[in-house]
C-alpha cells in the first residue's frame, strides 16, 4: 500500500501539514514523536502566535496535539532512518519496516546535533547511524554504540545478538536496560578517528566528573541520535548550509519531496513553521493531483 503523503515530524510544521492534507482528502502517514515538539514544550511563553496570545509553550504544544486528535489524525511514533528517492515515489525505512509514499514532507527541525570531529569523514567506513542496517556486517566483531536516548537501548541489544562485543555509552541519565553481555560505560564522546586499523572513539569525562580521557577501539562506532541531518536522512537532497533548500512552494530538488519549518531556515518561528507546513501539504496535493 502506497501512501499519498508521508509527513515526517510532529512539530508545528508537521501538524499544520497533516491538518491540510486531511482537508485535501489525502491518504497520509504522520510520523514522529507522540509528544509533539520538545522545543515548544520547553518554551516558557509564546507571545506572537496569531489567535493564541500569551500562551505557554506547553499549552500551545498540547493544543496542536489535541487538534490532531480531534481531527482523527494518529501519530506513528517511530523513527525514520532513511528516505530513498525512487522512480516516481519514495521508500522510507521506518524502524525495521519499509513503507512507500508518493510524496514526502520533511518537517524534522534543526535538532540533529553537530557532528563529532572525524564523524563525517568516516561515515560508512566505520561510523554508522543505523544498527539495523549494518549489524550483519559486524558479525563476530566488536562495536560501540553511543545512544542519545533510551530508545537506542533496543538497537544495542539487537547488535549484541550478532557482534562479539557491544559497548554502550548512554548520553542521558537514568537506568539503562540492556542484556548482561553489553558493557555500559560512562563518558562524553569527543572525536572519532581511524587507529591501528580500527575505529577509535575518544572519550572525555562528563563535566564535573572524575576521570581521564580515554578511548575505545572497535570495528564500528554507531552514533544513534534522535534525528539525522537531512542530507544523510535523504540521500541526494540539496542543502543550503545546514538547511534544506526549497522554493516558495516548499519543493526541494527532489520532485515530490517538500520541506517545511525550522528545517528550511530562518527565522525559527512557530507561525512560520505552521505556514510552511500548510504550503507544503497544498503543494504535495497539487503534485499528486497533476499526476492522476
Amino acid at each position: 500500500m502506497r501512501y499519498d503523503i508521508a509527513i515526517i515530524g510532529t512539530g508545528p510544521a508537521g501538524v499544520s501539514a497533516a491538518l491540510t492534507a486531511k482537508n485535501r482528502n489525502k491518504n497520509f502517514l504522520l510520523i514522529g514523536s507522540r509528544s509533539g515538539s520538545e522545543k515548544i514544550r520547553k518554551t516558557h511563553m509564546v507571545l506572537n502566535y496569531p489567535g493564541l496570545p500569551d500562551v505557554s509553550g506547553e499549552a500551545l504544544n498540547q493544543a496542536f496535539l489535541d487538534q490532531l486528535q480531534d481531527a482523527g489524525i494518529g501519530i506513528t511514533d517511530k523513527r525514520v532512518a532513511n528516505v530513498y528517492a525512487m522512480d516516481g515515489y519514495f521508500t522510507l525505512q521506518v524502524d525495521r519496516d519499509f513503507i512507500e509514499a508518493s510524496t514526502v514532507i520533511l518537517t524534522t527541525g534543526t535538532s540533529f546535533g553537530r557532528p563529532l570531529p572525524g564523524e563525517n569523514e568516516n561515515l560508512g567506513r566505520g561510523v554508522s547511524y543505523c544498527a539495523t542496517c549494518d549489524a550483519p556486517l559486524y558479525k563476530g566483531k566488536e562495536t560501540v554504540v553511543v545512544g542519545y536516548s533510551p530508545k537506542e537501548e533496543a538497537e544495542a541489544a539487537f547488535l549484541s545478538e550478532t557482534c562479539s562485543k557491544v559497548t554502550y555509552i548512554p548520553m542521558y541519565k537514568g537506568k539503562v536496560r540492556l542484556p548482561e553481555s553489553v558493557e555500559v560505560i560512562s563518558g562524553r564522546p569527543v572525536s572519532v578517528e581511524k587507529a591501528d586499523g580500527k575505529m577509535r572513539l575518544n572519550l572525555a569525562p562528563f563535566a564535573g566528573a572524575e576521570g581521564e580521557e580515554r578511548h575505545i577501539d572497535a570495528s564500528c562506532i554507531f552514533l544513534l541520535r534522535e534525528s539525522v541531518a537531512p542530507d544523510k536522512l535523504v540521500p541526494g537532497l540539496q542543502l543550503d548550509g545546514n538547511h534544506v533548500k526549497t522554493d516558495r512552494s516548499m519543493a526541494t530538488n527532489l520532485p515530490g519531496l517538500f520541506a517545511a519549518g525550522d528545517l528550511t531556515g530562518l527565522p525559527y518561528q512557530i507561525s512560520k513553521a505552521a505556514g510552511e507546513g500548510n504550503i507544503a501539504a497544498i503543494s504535495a496535493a497539487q503534485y499528486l493531483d497533476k499526476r492522476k
Partner: protein
Amino acid sequence: MSVRVINSAEFNDSIKTGVSVVDFNAKWCGPCRMLGPVLEKLSGEMADVRFYAVDVDEDPDVAEQFHITSIPYVAVFRDGQKVAENVGFIPEPAMKAFIQQNI
C-alpha cells in the same frame, strides 16, 4: 546490457579492462534491493560501461579486499584499478552523474 552477478573467481578478469561498475550488496540489505533496479536501468543506458554485482555474504573475500564496511557499496574500475566509490543508496540521477564523472 544488464548487471551480471559475478563471484570472487571471476572478479579480477571481469574488471581487468575498460570501465566497470561493481555493486557490492547482500540479500538482507534493504537499500541494496532498492539500488539494484537503478543500476539495472543505467546498465541499459550506458553502453560503454560493464555492470557487475557481488554478494558480500557469498564472496566475503572480495568485500575484504576493498575494506567494505557499509553497503550498498558501488565502485567504478578503470582497467582493473578502482577510481571511485559510493557508499549507500543515492537516487538514479545522482548515481548516473557519479558514474559519468568517473568514466
